[in-house]
């Protein structure tokens, strides 16, 4: 992908669509990208896109309900936008999607100590870091986020403008290897694993804020009547937090990995999310964010849905007599 293509297209979008602002990324002082809000076409000279981006930009969209917003969107972000439209959070007309190709996003945690490190450039299959005038070239594939390694839709699925460039090959999308490893454990071992992950959680809610799908004005953790969990980071309370957030995202999560990269403590969120999505896919053949106009999976039903209830099975025509 060429940076000047990006710049020119974004400028064009600004003018042709009369945008109020554009959500994109800019380089920080260390060379890694960070989210930026561009309010004027002149400021677009800073706009950039490469595998060092981290946050799903669609998380900012509900803030700008009444504005005309442009947004850079690889596959996952474009799907998040479709879900937001389907759930009535934004209008299709107000958002201008500038599709960008995606080779995957780096997991910064995998890079270790970043003191004094500067990101120099990305090449076809690698990237270059520099520290104290020493450079080293790293293989891109070894440092990608887990969500990206199993991403099913790297290229944008919907767009108003499209920047040319190579994207990753799509994979199945449910973190197969990680899930397989976990299902091989006994339930007790798995519970222990997730409890240990929950103990790391400091309840900062960075995961929730980084997720485009978590747009509730009043989150269930803030409910005091009834109070579902304590504010204190006790292990079981943390588990309730993680489990419920994942459940609220079942059939709505595009597995962008934004939450996982946002977490300051490195909690394993992707396994639970992948499993929830896989469940919805296997039970109801539903994948979120692929078609405008679809309802969320847990917001609809079919008469022939699989039934695993005690006393269940297909009960078409069986009437209750009372």
């Amino acid at each position, binding site marked *: 992908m060429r940076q000047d293509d990006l710049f020119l297209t974004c400028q064009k979008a600004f003018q042709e669509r009369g945008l109020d602002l554009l959500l994109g990324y800019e380089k920080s002082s260390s060379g890694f990208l960070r989210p930026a809000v561009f309010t004027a076409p002149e400021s677009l000279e800073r706009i950039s896109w490469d595998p060092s981006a981290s946050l799903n930009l669609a998380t900012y969209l509900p803030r700008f309900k009444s504005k005309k917003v442009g947004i850079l969107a690889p596959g996952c972000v474009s799907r998040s936008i479709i879900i937001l439209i389907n759930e009535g959070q934004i209008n299709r007309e107000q958002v201008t999607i500038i599709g960008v190709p995606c080779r995957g996003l780096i997991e910064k945690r995998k890079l270790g100590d970043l003191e004094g490190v500067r990101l120099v450039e990305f090449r076809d299959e690698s990237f270059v870091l520099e520290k104290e005038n020493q450079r080293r070239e790293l293989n891109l594939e070894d440092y990608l986020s887990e969500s990206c390694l199993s991403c099913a839709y790297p290229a944008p699925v919907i767009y108003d403008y499209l920047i040319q460039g190579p994207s990753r090959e799509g994979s199945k999308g449910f973190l197969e290897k990680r899930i397989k490893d976990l299902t091989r454990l006994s339930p007790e071992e798995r519970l222990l*694993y997730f409890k240990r992950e929950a103990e790391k959680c400091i309840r900062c809610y960075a995961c929730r804020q980084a997720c485009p799908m978590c747009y509730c004005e009043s989150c269930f953790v803030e409910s005091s009547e009834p109070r579902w969990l304590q504010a204190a980071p006790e292990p079981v309370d943390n588990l309730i937090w993680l489990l419920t957030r994942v459940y609220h995202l079942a059939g709505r999560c595009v597995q962008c990995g934004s939450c996982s990269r946002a977490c300051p403590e490195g909690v394993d969120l992707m396994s639970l999310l992948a499993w929830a999505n896989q469940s919805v896919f296997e039970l109801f053949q539903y994948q979120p964010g692929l078609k405008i106009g679809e309802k969320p999976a*847990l917001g609809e*039903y079919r008469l022939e849905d699989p039934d695993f209830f005690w006393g269940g099975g297909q009960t078409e025509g069986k009437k209750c007599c009372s």
Partner: protein
Amino acid sequence: MEDFEPKIIAFLCNWCSYAGADLAGVSRFQYPPNVRIIRVPCSGRVNPLFVLKALYEGADGVLVSGCHPGDCHYQSGNYYARRRLEVFKNLLNFLGLNPARFKMAWISASEGAQFAQLVREYVQEVKDAGPNLEFVREKADLVRFLNEAR
């Protein structure tokens, strides 16, 4: 563990399952007394957080029961409940929680005998699983404080 008596919380829909449980009582069907019933208007009212909260507060098992699909008093409530709770159950299984902790059922208002059967089966399942120690809130310090004040 032989004298472990589980505490089971049951969310029963008003129109079918609750009536079915009532019929079981009126018909004098015998079933263990371990179930504490909470009446809800429809199985679709059940928020999976109810299940988590019940376990968190010390329940050893949670039962959710509603009208058979097609018979919901509100037409479609139990269809939503079916989707929701099946996804939720899947998630709990993946988490590693003992599957005996959460059970879902359809009981109609005329199925008194089946309700008794369900409870007999489920209580035994939970007895075999043992008390819920893995998903309960930490309250040892409060229990201690309560007992020492006496």
